[in-house]
């Protein structure tokens, strides 16, 4: 037992300190959590993501109060009850819908920032791996949520994505039926995806967010130059008052003030979309109620899955499935495929500079093609882009192994 002061008043500073070590927590988590000074606004994307996740959680709880996970009621509970009968239900729904879409934009910016500055390398591998795990969980969360309004695209996306588990030539239809709980998406399917969306996946996300933050604590965040320095020495310098010379700043309040400013700009964009342009995040096809007897003309996923969908599509079933499976996990291997000793921005790193921009542009091309009907020139472009994607990952260890030490 630690020493407790008999005279400390309940909930006084001292009383709290003895029980919860509030001073230590504050120091470790904020005022002496050291952040490199030399970072730009892209490093604020983590906080932007945390804020967006919070917004999604809160708006989701409000929607959950009125949503009905029943194949006959789901569509109207979303499109009528929440939109017309619940005070500001439309606002919560638009916030949730726009948030679900925009969160992926920020995730991709966050990911490509990490790739560009080499923030996944040497000592920071676990940050990258836990981040990629978060990406997978967010994908599961987005997909399960997309099912819930039970519109045409919900139903058919559910059909197409669960069909992937039949494994093409493996004909593992039993697996698909087990996942769906039925031969086609139905009540059992809706119930379990509802559970996944509101409980299991968010719970896992919260857990992995904590892990992701934890992985940052020891290696510290990277900086714009990939410079390695002694954080403790720099921190001592800062604490001694050499603020200008020190390479670090405390998270709170110095970097936090920048985070909050970046979030402000982000929220202006976010709420502009919520009030004036929410339709970009809501596929019109999903405003037709689910109809198992009528296939939509084009079936495509939301924009953030299009690139991996397009890696699946241009090949024959089995090869497509294998390519798709590789695309899902390949980003996890980035820290191990990159053989270069350098932690530096892509611009200073030989061929990797071209690799980075080629990957980015290739994924944008794949995204475009994933939405277009697979006809004529578009399917050829899609095939070339999918092959390029594979080739880029095969080339990565080779070009990075040749990289000279900076």
């Amino acid at each position, binding site marked *: 037992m630690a020493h407790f002061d008999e005279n400390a008043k309940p909930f006084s500073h001292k009383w709290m300190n003895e029980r919860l070590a509030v001073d230590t927590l504050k120091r470790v988590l904020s005022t002496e959590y050291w952040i490199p000074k030399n970072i730009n606004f892209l490093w604020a994307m983590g906080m932007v993501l945390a804020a967006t996740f919070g917004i999604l959680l809160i708006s989701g709880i409000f929607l959950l109060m009125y949503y009905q996970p029943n194949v006959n009621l789901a569509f109207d509970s979303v*499109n*009528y009850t929440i939109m017309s009968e619940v005070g500001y239900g439309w606002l919560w729904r638009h916030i949730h819908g726009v948030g679900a879409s925009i969160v992926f934009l920020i995730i991709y*910016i966050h990911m490509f920032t990490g790739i560009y500055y080499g923030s996944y390398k040497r000592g920071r591998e676990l940050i990258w791996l836990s981040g990629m795990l978060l990406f997978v969980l967010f994908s599961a969360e987005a997909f399960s949520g997309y099912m819930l309004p039970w519109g045409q695209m919900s139903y058919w996306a559910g059909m197409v994505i669960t069909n992937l588990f039949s494994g093409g030539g493996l004909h593992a239809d039993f697996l698909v039926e087990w996942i769906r709980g039925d031969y086609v998406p139905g009540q059992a399917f809706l119930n379990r995806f509802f559970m996944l969306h509101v409980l299991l996946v968010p719970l896992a996300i919260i857990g992995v967010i904590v892990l992701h933050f934890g992985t940052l604590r020891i290696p510290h965040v990277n900086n714009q130059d990939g410079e390695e320095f002694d954080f403790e020495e720099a921190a001592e310098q800062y604490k001694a008052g050499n603020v200008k010379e020190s390479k670090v700043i405390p998270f709170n309040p*110095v970097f936090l*003030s920048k985070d909050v400013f970046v979030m402000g700009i982000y929220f*202006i964009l976010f*709420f502009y979309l919520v009030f*004036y342009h929410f339709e970009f995040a809501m596929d019109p096809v999903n405003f*037709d109620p689910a109809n198992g007897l009528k296939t939509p003309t084009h079936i495509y996923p939301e924009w953030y899955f299009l690139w991996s969908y397009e890696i699946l599509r241009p090949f024959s079933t089995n090869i497509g499935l294998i390519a798709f499976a590789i695309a899902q996990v390949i980003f996890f291997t980035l820290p191990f495929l990159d053989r270069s000793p350098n932690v530096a921005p892509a611009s200073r790193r030989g061929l990797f500079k071209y690799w980075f921009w080629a990957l980015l542009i290739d994924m944008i091309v794949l*995204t475009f093609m994933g939405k277009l009907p697979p006809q004529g020139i578009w399917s050829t472009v899609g095939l070339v882009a999918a092959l390029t994607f594979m080739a880029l990952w095969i080339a990565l260890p080779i070009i990075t192994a040749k990289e000279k030490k900076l």
Partner: protein
Amino acid sequence: MKELKIFGIVAVFTLILYWGVEPFAHSQMHKHVEGDNLQYSDLKPVAAKGDAAKGEALAAACVGCHSIKVKNMPAPMDAVASAQAYGVNPPDLSLAGAMLDEKFFAHFLLNPAEVTKSKHFAMPPSAGSEQDAADIVAYFKSIAPKEATAKEGYEFACGRCHANRYDKWTQIGDVPKTKSNIKTGVDLAALDFKKNLGVYQNKLADYMGKLPPDLSIIIRARSEHFLHTFIEDPQSQLPGTAMPRVGLNKEGMEKVFTYLEETGDPSAPKRKAVGPWVLAFFFIFTFLAYGWKKAMWKGHH
């Protein structure tokens, strides 16, 4: 400034991405159909000048099937019986003169199946000559009320085939307010209504090939351009559809759209009211945050 340059790069890639998955993809996925601004240019102009008084006499034949509420003429049969006889309930004609294009209306009276582009149209040709047709049109224009609600317009143009459940509208009228028996919990009046609606919808589905879709949120499910060109000429967007060309004029189209927007996008006025305040809040928030950042980073560079 370096950060602005980085922001510019992020913004450019984001906009390219947006352009590709939204405007560009949609332009490729949906063929573009040009409307003709409700001119119905495939129909010849009607030379004859209508005489409302003569038209009134000719219109007496209409009430064999149709009601004309503004003239206190009831329908000979109720909606369900009409559907059993014709497949669909004929519309009340009070608004016909206000909602329909004059030229379309005249040609419609002469040859309904051809101008509606619907092979199995229930109504037979109902005017002997172009002059008769022009007279009838003139009569209906003279009796049409100046003020009609958007819902009345919808009822005339769409409401006998298409329900709108978010407005509690069915093909046989508004869902009545009924109460269940307090002892048994059974609402017989509601069940009766449901049964009548079911009979009507079955007849309608037989007549049209399938039950026409509910239009509650069609405004969100289809683009405005699609709906305009589709209502103007259903075959242009959906070749082979059983939906007849309705022949609305500009005012008629506006009424239908007003109604569809009210039921399909009821939050539009609230969005306009609340949006500027929320954005103003975040502009101020960002301005203050910038000031805080400036103060915090002072002496750091």
